[in-house]
């Protein structure tokens, strides 16, 4: 059982405060959706949790099973059990996915006896062309291939808590189903907790949220169950964009 505990998190980017105090607790097996309009601070939340340069935490805390996440460099946050699925996965010329996963496992002192076999099995599970594993990461990948690649890494590295930043953006319906289902399966099979950041609720057909939080202007303005996503789908964000100030 793991817990990611975000307390009153305040984050600035380039001197402008974007997050004004976020409090969220995510336990193993739980799926928390954070939804909000453009510019609400959704991506800032994921970047700050993972320690992306340029995102300055000016207040609050983030703890994973009691460990101070904010005191760790990025790579240690990942080794401790956090995993970020990026909205726009970075192209890394000349570096193969198999090399990245191999080094990531070495850092975890977890060598897989047959990494290639695991990769191939996981690739098949989400219809990812396993040929791409031996190509440079994300270079010349389509939008769907990039997100399948991100999902594949999550499946192999088995994080305690995953942060998914707009997994659904740029995805066709087939890729969306494959990726969302694999994340849902991980919450059931390995008890992974998930913080799912998204603008739209179409992701939830396969990946069922237990909790939905509405983020507007750097604050969580409302929390509820899955019915809140239905409400947003119906009414949009207009109400929150105006009341959040």
């Amino acid at each position, binding site marked *: 059982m793991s817990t990611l505990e975000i307390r009153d998190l305040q984050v600035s980017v380039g001197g402008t405060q974007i997050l004004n105090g976020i409090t969220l607790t995510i336990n193993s097996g739980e799926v928390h959706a954070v939804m909000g309009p453009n510019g609400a601070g959704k991506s800032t939340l994921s970047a700050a949790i993972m320690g992306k340069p340029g995102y300055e935490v000016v207040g609050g805390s983030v703890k994973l099973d009691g460990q101070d996440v904010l005191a760790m460099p990025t790579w240690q946050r990942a080794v401790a059990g956090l995993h970020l699925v990026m909205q726009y996965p970075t192209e890394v*010329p000349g570096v193969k996915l198999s090399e990245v996963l191999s080094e990531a496992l070495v850092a975890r002192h977890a060598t897989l006896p047959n990494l290639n076999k695991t990769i191939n099995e996981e690739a098949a599970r989400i219809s990812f062309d396993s040929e791409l594993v031996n190509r440079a990461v994300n270079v010349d990948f389509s939008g769907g291939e990039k997100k399948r690649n991100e999902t594949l890494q999550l499946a192999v590295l088995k994080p305690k808590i995953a942060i998914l930043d707009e997994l659904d953006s740029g995805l066709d319906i087939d890729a969306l189903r494959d990726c969302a289902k694999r994340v849902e399966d991980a919450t059931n099979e390995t008890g992974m907790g998930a913080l799912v950041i998204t603008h739209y609720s179409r992701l939830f057909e396969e990946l069922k949220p237990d909790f939905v939080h509405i983020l507007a202007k750097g604050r969580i303005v409302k929390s509820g169950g899955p019915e809140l996503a239905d409400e947003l789908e119906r009414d949009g964000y207009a109400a929150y964009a105006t009341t959040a100030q």
Partner: protein
Amino acid sequence: MTTALALPSTEEEIWRYSRINELDLSKFASGKLTTTVEGGEGVQLTGATATALVGAGMHVQPDVFAQLNTDTPDVIALQIGKNKVHSQTVVITHSVDKSGVVAYPRLVIYAAENSEIVVVERFTSADNVHSLVVPVVEVHAAQSARVTYLAINELGKNTWQIGHQVAVGERDSNVRLFTVALGGDYARMRAEVRLVGQGASAQQTALYFADGTQMHDFRTLQSHEAPRTHSDLLFKGAVKDTSKSVYTGLIKITENGTKTEAFQTNRTLTLSRGAWAESVPNLEIETNDVKCSHASTVGPIDDDQRFYLESRGVPPEIAERLVVFGFFDEVIDRLPQSEFLAGIRDKVIAKLGGTK
């Protein structure tokens, strides 16, 4: 004696950015390298026939150092006959064994019509050797000949190199010139290819990595003097600590060079704040109907790439290594397969690890 010669200075454009002003030739006495040649059976010439081949690929002396080499060369000459394929790679290894020496190794490769040869030339010295190597390699590729040449600079950190690679390609020939530069204190290489026959092609490729206070200095020329000639240049390097690199390249297409394709790319990673790199591409085109491009970048490792790998749990020093090797990947891919590639990889890793 060499003392009477007027040396160039950084006032001259071709020596701009160089460390030529630090050179005092009178400190060096002419001397020999220790040289071995493997795989040369059947193609290596000796005695007067070897000396007679000097000038086969270099008709004019580009500067005083090439002239000095031409005046007193230590010649290795390789000649491959018409329609012959020399299946064994010729490996030449030079070692600079003592300080205070200036040496003038000269390699001449003459490939007759429709022949093929691969040559590797390595330059080595210990770190405590304060000497100067002035190597010249001339390549003459006759019609449809295929020549591959790889120079590996593994000189010690107090040895200087001021070198030339000059190649001439006749009709439908292919010349590939590779340079791997890891060593030397100040190591300069002028690499020039003249495509003089219709349909001739050339690839020039370099991997360089300077650390400590090293400086790697490259001047390249892709000269297209006949129609439908093709050249492709890719130079990629890294500078670390307070080291420096300079790349200055010229694509020149004469009025005869119609339907020519010429490409030039130079990219340098600056791995430390104190490291410095300059990249100066130039074009000189005297005809229409050509396809030509050049690209150059100098900069640090991309922050997003670093963050991407670190966010997977890859520690920073490994992430840097992966990104740097990824950066060099397309160059390493082009290098001819040789037993020395593994050693080159290890040296790059050692340089990244900070073991200066």
